């Protein structure tokens, strides 16, 4: 019954494909039909880098149906390098090792399992990014495309504006 619903969002879930607003340049994820900044129609698909950092995190102990076998699991808001926040699980890491600001990168994993004979739903999760000194020099030198908001107590401006390209 729900196969079509999951199939419709495979590009987003497998490859982190969002959009770039042709009018104002804003990177948008998850994709939507109208740019939330300028109201222009947003149709230009863009694949995100999958790099980002942890904005906040928590742990789920009491899971919704279809997620019971994964508890406890870490959930997070991840600030993508291109600007948007994304809601996702963290994987390959213990809760005690997670910190706000921790660099993470996207991987594809099983998100939910519907019953014993049901579908496996795959999608993005984020794991700790490989240490900088293990990466190729040019990758390590590549700066984040947008400045991240500082955790200094008060936002002078809404985050959205700070993250605009």
């Amino acid at each position, binding site marked *: 019954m729900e196969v079509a619903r999951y199939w419709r969002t495979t590009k987003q879930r497998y490859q982190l494909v969002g959009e770039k607003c042709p009018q104002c340049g804003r990177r948008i994820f998850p994709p939507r039909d109208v740019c939330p900044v300028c109201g222009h129609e947003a149709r230009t698909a863009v694949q995100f880098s999958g790099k980002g950092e942890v904005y906040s995190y928590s742990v789920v102990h009491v899971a919704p149906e279809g997620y019971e076998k994964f508890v406890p699991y870490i959930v997070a*808001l991840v600030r993508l390098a291109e600007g948007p*926040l994304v809601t996702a699980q963290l994987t390959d890491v213990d809760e005690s090792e997670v910190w706000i600001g921790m660099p993470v990168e996207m991987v594809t994993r099983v998100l939910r399992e519907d019953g014993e004979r049901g579908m496996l739903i795959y999608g993005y999760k984020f794991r700790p990014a490989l240490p900088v000194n293990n990466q190729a020099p040019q990758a390590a030198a590549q700066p984040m495309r947008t400045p991240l908001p500082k955790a200094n107590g008060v936002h002078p401006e809404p985050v959205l504006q700070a993250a605009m390209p």
Partner: protein
Amino acid sequence: MRDVSIIGIGQTPVGEHWDKSLRELAYQALLAAMQSAGVERVDALYVGNMLSGELTAQEHLGALIADFAGLRGIEAIKVEAACGSGAAALRVGYMAVASGLCDLVACIGVEKMTDQQGSTVTSALAMAADAEYEALQGLTFVSINALLMRRYMHEYGYRKEDFANFAINAHANAVNNPYAMFRSPITAAQFAEAKPIADPINLLDSSPIADGAACVILAPTSIAREFTDKPVRVRAIAIATDTLAVHDRRDPLYLEGGALSAQKAYAMAGVGPADIDVFELHDAFTIMSALSLEAAGFAPRGQGVRLAMDGEIGLNGRIPITTMGGLKARGHPVGATGMYQIVEVAQQLREEAGLNQVKNAQLGMAQNIGGSGATVVTTILERI
């Protein structure tokens, strides 16, 4: 537009009503409100409810409750806006009376949650969030609030225990509310030792799911005194929206929908936060209390928790909140909660709050929040 007043209020105790169905709870509250107003019939019935389909396999609540209450034939519909459904139903009733289309209107909030197992309720509540980009990731409603709370603590430098007074105040007030679910006080030590459910949120940060129904009867203010000597005038009611998903917000720590709906309500009533004597806010989690106080203009950004820490939220404080126990201790039957808030503000303005009476309360406000802030209903009521 006609001026609108509340002429009758009714509520059931909040709790686990094993012996009562959704329709019985709704009828009990409706009957109490109609008796309080001295009316035997209404022109229309608006039912605020979030989860009847998911949890009791019953939709079509308007006709169901109208029929069950002996009001067959009247206009009756369900209004849904997640946990904001209760006050949203009041908004629809308000429009019906203000417009002149209806004279006497009943607005009910009702929810029946305890028939189902925990994981079913957890999944159902998550439907208030974005199904494709929050719930599909395994997020629960409590974990979404936990994400907000942790970031809030990080940005503004608070500790977990700084939130304790929200829960302590709610429980202290529920002791004197016969309709409340948890009528026992809690201490700071109990808060500190409470079981974590989605760190940093613990059991005592969180409101309990419950069954319950609350109801008000609306009429034009011009005829309100024909029914009651204690009418409560609806000075303002405003709904505003924000993105469904937290990750789509410009700043997740700012309830833009809450600020917008409060500003609309203040403008409609011609008042400001300093004029409000009592504020029933949506303390589904302690972090929501802080964000609601900030959005409604009672505290600057990042300072909502300070009001609790400094003892400003008590019955004699600068801004008394959750005066009958709030969601935390009165209980949170989600689609009914908004109507409980309205009934409780009306109790304060009618001088019917018993030991919890806020002295000389003239103007009261309620803020009912759907989801993590995507729908916010702000209502301002006045004693006349």
